[in-house]
Structure formats: structure tokens, C-alpha cells
């Protein structure tokens, strides 16, 4: 591992910490603002600004955001939308990861003719902008009678995630020595047995990365959520936007801040506790 040449020898050391800390403040500022606002009262924010320290802690904001606040006529808070996102993200993450593992296995270890081309095509799906998929999905969901359902969104995220999961798994399995597979075949092991007995036990490192990547992306996804669901079926990102666009009533910044934090919580927690895996996914999927 190489060290970057020391700036200290160029007489620039005094400038390292101020810059690093200044940028840390820049990145933290919005988060600090939201956390503080989630504890401030409506009057306090509207009479001054969103930048300020709470005069008294309004814990009520959090309970309102969770289960009381009205959005588009429904006074349910964001709880049902959080539930929708969870019910959508968990199965979609699991199934798309499993399909990616199978595809990765086939493409890396059963190098049939055309495997490289198929892999290139699937990888191209990583670049494909979501806008190219909107119309086909609209038609497909209508045909399958899945418009405006959470199941429809699950389907979208399973299929839409396969490009990424296949890419991650294939690039990992390609390092499994071919000799291992050959030896297993000599012993009479077949396609499925090799997968179960050799590939699956080797997979936890890449599966963690894939699961974290998929869950974060699906949880944070907005375009499909807002396009293909309405009202009570919306995932939390789409519901937040509805809250945001609710200009008819005076903005409850305190409650909205708590709602934003609640919606961001799952992926933030994953990032804080699984940062290493998050970063690996981010770098491997850098071309998104």
C-alpha cells in the first residue's frame, strides 16, 4: 500500500485539518438541521428558520410522523408506507439475489458458447436508464393486472435487480478455480450439486454485498414507486414526495423532518453497521 506523498513536506500541513473538518461540517449540516427540526415546534420553525436549536424538545413530532400525520387525506403517518417499502424490499432483495447467484454461477463456471455475449447484454442492463423501462412496465403490469399493487413493484425490483446481482456474483465466481469444478464433476457431481456444495458455501462475502446493495437501492427507489402505485400502496419515498407536494396546508417542517429521518433510517443503519459491504457494492456497481 502506497502512501500519498506527505503534504507536510510541502509546508501545507496546517491546511489539512481545517479543510477536512470544514467539509465534514458541510456534509453533516443537512442531517443536523433535520435532526434538530424534528424536535422543534411548528411556530418556532415558521417564525424563524429551519436553522436553529430547539427551545423545548417536541417529541410529539416523531409520534405524529409515525402514525398520526395526515397525507393526502389519510391520517396514518408514514407507518403504512414504511411497511409497504419493507414488504416490497425484502422479498425483492432475496429473490433477485438468488437469481443473480444462479446466473453468475452459470455464466462464470459453465462457460458455454455465447456466455460472454449474454453477460455483456445483462451488464448493459446496468446502464439502461429507468426511463427506457417505464412504458414496457406500464403495459406489462396492466396485462398482469398488477398496476397499483405492491406485488407489481416487487416484480419490477426483482427483474430490474437481476443485472446488478448477476454482475456482482459472476465477477466473484469467476475467481473460483476451474479445477475445483472439474474435480467435482469427475466425482460425479452435477450442475445442482456443485452449486449447493461448492458455490453456495463460498458465497457469503458476495451475497452480503449484493443483499445490502439491492436493499438500499430498492428502499430508496422512487420513480417506479410513484409511477406504478397510488394512495395507500405507495412505498415510503413516494409517500414522502406526496407530503412534500402538499402545499395546500401550512408546512409542518417539524413533523416532516421526523418523517424524513424515519424513512432514511433503515438504509442509514445499514450504512453505519455494514459500511464496508456498502462501499464494496458501491464501487463494484459504480457505473449505475
Amino acid at each position, binding site marked *: 500500500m502506497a502512501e500519498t*506523498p506527505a503534504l507536510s513536506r510541502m509546508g501545507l500541513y496546517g491546511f489539512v485539518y481545517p479543510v477536512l473538518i470544514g467539509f465534514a461540517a458541510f456534509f453533516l449540516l*443537512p442531517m443536523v438541521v433535520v435532526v434538530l427540526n424534528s424536535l422543534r415546534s411548528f411556530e418556532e420553525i415558521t417564525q424563524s428558520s429551519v436553522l436553529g436549536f430547539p427551545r423545548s424538545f417536541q417529541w410529539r413530532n416523531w409520534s405524529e410522523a409515525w402514525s398520526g400525520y395526515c397525507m393526502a387525506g389519510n391520517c396514518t403517518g408514514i407507518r403504512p408506507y414504511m411497511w409497504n417499502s419493507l414488504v416490497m424490499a425484502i422479498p425483492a432483495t432475496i429473490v433477485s439475489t438468488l437469481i443473480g447467484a444462479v446466473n453468475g454461477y452459470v455464466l462464470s463456471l459453465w462457460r458455454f458458447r455465447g456466455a460472454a455475449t449474454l453477460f455483456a447484454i445483462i451488464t448493459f442492463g446496468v446502464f439502461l436508464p429507468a426511463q427506457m*423501462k417505464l412504458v*414496457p412496465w406500464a403495459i406489462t403490469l396492466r396485462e398482469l393486472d398488477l398496476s397499483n399493487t405492491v406485488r407489481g413493484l416487487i416484480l419490477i425490483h426483482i427483474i430490474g435487480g437481476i443485472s446488478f446481482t448477476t454482475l456482482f456474483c459472476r465477477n*466473484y465466481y469467476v475467481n473460483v478455480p476451474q479445477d475445483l469444478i472439474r474435480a467435482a464433476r469427475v466425482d460425479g457431481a452435477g450442475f*445442482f450439486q456443485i452449486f449447493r456444495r461448492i458455490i453456495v458455501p463460498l458465497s457469503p*462475502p458476495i451475497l452480503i454485498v449484493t443483499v445490502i446493495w439491492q436493499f438500499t437501492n430498492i428502499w430508496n427507489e422512487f420513480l417506479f414507486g410513484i409511477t406504478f402505485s397510488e394512495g395507500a400502496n405507495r412505498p415510503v419515498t413516494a409517500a414522502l414526495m406526496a407530503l412534500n407536494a402538499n402545499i395546500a396546508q401550512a408546512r409542518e417542517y417539524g413533523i416532516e423532518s421526523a418523517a424524513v429521518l424515519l424513512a432514511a433510517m433503515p438504509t442509514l443503519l445499514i450504512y453505519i453497521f455494514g459500511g464496508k459491504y456498502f462501499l*464494496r457494492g458501491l464501487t*463494484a456497481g459504480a457505473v449505475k
Partner: protein
Amino acid sequence: MVAILASQIGHGLVPAPEQGRARWPRARRFWGVTAVEQIAKLVAVLALAVAVLYVVGFTLWTTWISFTDSTLLPNYTFVGIKHYTRLLQTRIWQVAYANLAIYGFGFMVFATAIGLLLAILIDQKVRAENLLRTIYLYPMALSFVVTGTVWSWLLNPGIGIQGFVRGLGWTGFSFGWLVDRDMAIYTVVLAAVWQASGFAMALFLAGLRSLDADLYKAAQIDGAGPARMYLRILVPAMWPIVIAVLVILLQFAIKTYELVRALTAGGPGIATTLPTTVVYDYMFQRGLMGAGSAAAVMLLLSLLVIIVPYAIYRRLSARRRIRHG
């Protein structure tokens, strides 16, 4: 190409599979095994077929619809490139691309510069490196909806930074980019830079740490000072990574949608409209599926204009490396 990118930037980021861990039991042969085998193979073929059909099928489907007069429902009568020529002449499409040019350029330059600066500074054996890295990168874990919403509050002239500074007593202070037609696009730059600079830093840091330590030693033995080391070693070695990061950020910029929708909703007026928002507008607001699809295809072509030359460049330089050993 993704694999090339990943292997170049994150050399060894994902550790190679451990070898020799699997212990192979004596192979069993009874009638059940073959049935399981056949089903497993069928599942694998289906999974692969779905993945390929999805990419190829959906791309061709949207392209096909872009050549038809589909409105709310698909209508498969061919009308040629009508939507493309019309779209290129509409003002909103031109404004969208002009905005994308400003936003894409500003975002790329600032995110790359901040990312590189932070990576070099963090690589000076600083204290609390992990904490700083965590702080710089956490925005990437957030939804663009969250980022856009929070920045829309901070930049709101009444309730945000402007209101705060005025409240402090400087009543003439003005910071109203969000509602200023000429400046609104820079709020998108600001929010996107906030979200993605840490990501650029992470890529650069991985690059810096994968450089060969011998390079520095050799230069030191030659008596090169630190300034010259930056110029002679760091710059040439980091150059390919800088290009990779620029390409990644540019395609990120072209795909930006949610952030604008949450931050400015394309406004004021159409001042922050991007091609992605135009696509959505045509498809779902105006119910013009054919025209919207044409816009989506042009969006894809814009991406290809960036990615194809880059892929060719990567392949050529890889070949050159092999030839020179």
C-alpha cells in the same frame, strides 16, 4: 466494461473466494438426483432468459413504441422518426439539454475536485480517518428524495439559509437561487455534489492506495521532492482513475431525476427541467407514450455517446499494456 472499471478502481475490493474449503462428499447416484438436476438446469435457463429478455426486450419495445403514435395506450402503427424530429425542435427539449450541460459539467467538476482533494488529504495519515470517511460518504446511503427535500428547505429563501441570516440582523442578505430562474440549476449542482462527492473520494482513495509503493521509493532515491512526486508519479498514475470517475459521474448526471423532482420539481417554470423529467412529463403527465419513448431513446443515446468511446478507450489501453508487458 463494468468489470474492467471495478477491477481498475477497486483492485481487490471484494476478496477472492477462499479456495479448498469445500469438502466433497462421495457422489450419490440415485433416481432423485437426476430429477433435481433437470429442474435446477431448467431454473437456471429460465433465470438467464429472463435477464436477457428484460434488457433486450424492454429496450427494443420502448424503441419500437418511439416510432409509433401511441398515446395513453400503445398503438403499433409505424410513423417513422416523427417524434424525434419534433422533439428536437421543441423548446423544452432544448432547455432540458442546456440544463443538463450546465448541471452535468458543474457537478462533474466540483464532485471530482472535492473528491480528489478529500482523498489526498485523508491519505495524509490523519486522525479519525474512519469517522471522516463515514461522514463524507453517508449521503450515498440516502434516497435522492431525502436529499432533495432537505436541500429544498435549506435553500428556501423564507425558511432556509437566507431567512436565518436575515434573522441574525443582516436584513439585506440574499440567497434565493432556488426561486431564481437563472440560478436554480446550480441548486441541483449543489445538492448532487453534496450527495456524490464522498463517493468520488472513495473511488480516488481506493486508487491512491492501490498505487505501487515502489514508485515513490524509486522517485525518492532519485531525489525528487514531494511537489515533483505529485507531478511525475501521482498525476500520471491517477489519470485513468480520474477519467473513470468523470465518466461515472457524467452518466450519473444524465440519469438524474429524483433529485430534481424533490428539490425544484423542474422549476421555477422550466428552469431546472432535465431530459429525464421531460420523458416522465410526456409519458405520464401528457399521456404521449410515443413521444415520451422517443425522448427516452435519445436519453439512452446520450449515455451511449459517453460510454461507448470510454469502453473503446479502456480496451485499447488494456491492449497496449499487454503489448508492452
